[in-house]
């Protein structure tokens, strides 16, 4: 393990991951399974952000679905606009609006015809929202379970809000995307391209997270997690430290949502409410919140297990899923990432210094 913390080790790790993602996976998996993997990688991107905010920063963000959803909806709006434009020329309204009886393009949709604007919005809007919300919450020192419950309620409220927006597809959400920045989405070659894009984004996100953890900021974040008040007495504004991690996690989730949309072909409130948000967290917890790759592994494992189990036992897989959460979290506090460590010290009872949650 020590090796991977060295510079050479880091490059080796990234190299191996790239080899698996870009070489092995496309070779071994069918188009459908590769598409599924691409979808799982989106969850993994969200997980990396949660690992940072929760594992390092102690903020249990039960509402990542909000940021994931923002990214996804922003991208979906662009795809719908592109689609409408292709079918009906500039100014045409997307198909679902016609069906809902909306004849006139709502003003806030218009800018999403521009790819550049869309990408900027995906990067900026959720992040800015996270900064505002983070400031409101962290400056007032709302933390721990309070923060968790609050962010959960946020996810619930956000989903409900979206359901009520007929100009965003309401309960059905947005679906039926045909083109992605000019490319046909039903072409298998383009679907594979999408997979490569997601894989690339994941590696980039992991790299950013790694840099943040190893930086002084990373140490500061842990300090804030463990003794927030103390940090203030050293002259830092602890709220700002937290806001940064929270915003970065939001950014990752938003990007993940944005790439999720062309891959899965639909975004609806059902994918961003309370339960999906908890699923994001579960992946991270199961993989190991405090480690760098733990969240990635956990997110992939949970998503994969979910698919595999439900294919095998369509009517009883919830049992297996529930059991999986219970067993892994109760027995492996550090997640999958800690398996080795746990095996090593089975004879004794408790970790010396327990990571505070």
């Amino acid at each position: 393990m020590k090796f991977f913390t060295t510079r050479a080790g880091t490059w080796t790790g990234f190299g191996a991951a790239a080899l698996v993602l870009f070489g092995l996976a496309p070779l071994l998996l069918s188009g459908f399974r590769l598409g599924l993997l691409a979808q799982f990688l989106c969850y993994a991107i969200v997980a990396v952000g949660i690992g940072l905010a929760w594992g390092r920063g102690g903020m249990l963000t039960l509402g990542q679905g909000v940021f994931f959803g923002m990214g996804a909806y922003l991208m979906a709006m662009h795809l719908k606009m592109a689609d409408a434009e292709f079918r009906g020329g500039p100014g045409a309204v997307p198909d679902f609006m016609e069906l809902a009886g909306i004849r006139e393009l709502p003003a806030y949709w218009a800018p999403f015809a521009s790819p550049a604007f869309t990408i900027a919005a995906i990067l900026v809007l959720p992040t800015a929202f996270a900064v505002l919300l983070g400031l409101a919450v962290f400056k007032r020192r709302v933390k721990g379970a309070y923060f968790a419950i609050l962010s959960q309620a946020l996810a619930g409220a956000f989903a409900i809000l979206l359901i009520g927006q007929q100009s965003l597809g309401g309960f059905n959400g947005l679906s039926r995307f045909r083109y992605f920045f000019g490319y046909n989405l039903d072409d298998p070659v383009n679907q594979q391209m999408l997979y490569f894009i997601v894989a690339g984004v994941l590696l980039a996100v992991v790299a950013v997270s790694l840099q943040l953890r190893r930086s002084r900021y990373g140490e500061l974040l842990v300090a804030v997690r463990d003794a927030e008040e103390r940090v203030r007495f050293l002259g830092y504004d602890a709220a700002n430290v937290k806001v940064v991690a929270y915003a970065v996690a939001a950014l990752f989730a938003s990007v993940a949502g944005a790439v999720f949309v062309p891959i899965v072909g639909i975004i609806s409130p059902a994918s961003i409410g309370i339960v999906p948000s908890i699923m994001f967290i579960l992946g991270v917890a199961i993989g190991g919140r405090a480690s760098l790759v733990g969240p990635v592994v956990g997110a992939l494992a949970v998503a994969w297990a979910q698919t595999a189990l439900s294919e095998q036992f369509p009517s009883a897989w919830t049992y297996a899923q529930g059991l999986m959460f219970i067993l892994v979290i109760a027995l492996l506090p550090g997640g999958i990432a800690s398996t080795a460590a746990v095996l090593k010290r089975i004879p004794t009872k408790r970790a010396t210094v327990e990571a505070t949650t």
Partner: protein
Amino acid sequence: ACGSKAGEETAAVESCVDTSGDTVKVGSLNSLSGTMAISETTVRDSIALAVKEINAAGGVQGKTIEIVAEDGASEPTVFAEKAEKLIREDCVAAVFGGWTSASRKAMLPVFEDNDSLLYYPVQYEGLEASENIFYTGATTNQQIIPALDYLAETGVESIYLVGSDYVFPRTANAIINAYAEAHGIEVLGEDYVTLGSTEFSTIVTQVKSAGADAVFNTLNGDSNVAFFREYANVGLTAEEMPVMSVSIAEEEVGGIGVENIEGQLAAWNYYQTVDSPANGSFVEAFKAEYGADRVTSDPMEAAYTSVYLWAATVEKAGSFAVADVQEAADGVSFDAPEGTVVIDGDNHHVSKTARIGEINADGLLYTVWESEGPIEPDPFLEGYDWAADLAVTE
């Protein structure tokens, strides 16, 4: 290595359906977990029943039908994922299932891109027609409009609209508003609650004080229980202010408690009590298979029917190939429990008999009015002048 760009043709996907053996696979895709499981598990059962019966009668094209079941988990993305899996990995000839419009909208591109078939068995808001979907539940002119006609006929001059906050109720209410305007009915209020919400104190108070002649209810699922209990408890009765519901079938009546809903109205195409030989044997077979205490309902019947319609179409086409099935579909009919249904080859919907039912003390619904014969499907309401503003043809 980039693929085709917008405007260019994408190479057609090869279907992997294998008909060389003596079985043929079909998918059954319903929510077996999550909030929608409450309704969709019943549909799974009636699909299985139809398949069992067809197999017992020799299968389709001499082949035994094999069901691949998947759980849509009440999530549209899962429906899309599982549909793709059924098509591409299991190579099914057709998929039966879906319930919410969101799940259907999510699956639609999957079926179109992979050129496969979905049989969707639930009444819905209309305004859709895909080559790759067969809609065997009612569209609005086979359910909502007859319900409105019935209310108008019985002298209702004002209504109050209550619905769950999602697409079907919103679209339905848009249609109702247009209808009401054209027919001089006053809409006194329109309220939406979150799916699954059980707090109806405010709404029922408002309904009561508005004093409409009738309530048009597009609530779905659990909310109905809370709504009708509250409704009964503030002293509102079916005589005083009837409620016309379009999503309450035999299953739901059990959960609401018949004492709270007796005498209220519903609009569907099928009730367990429909008096026909076909229904007699359907109900009997269903109870034999799943227990005497189970009831049959409209979506179950539509799902059951959809399997038979598929089988009949395949027999007519003499092939399982999607193109052949699409080609042969027009005019295929089946003597369904609800009466004869016929596929409309243009819009892939089926003709259906509309029925207004009243809920009786035994928990079953009894027909109090029915259309003269099956109504032709008109998903885009092209035959109704007052609806001209509502929808656009695709």
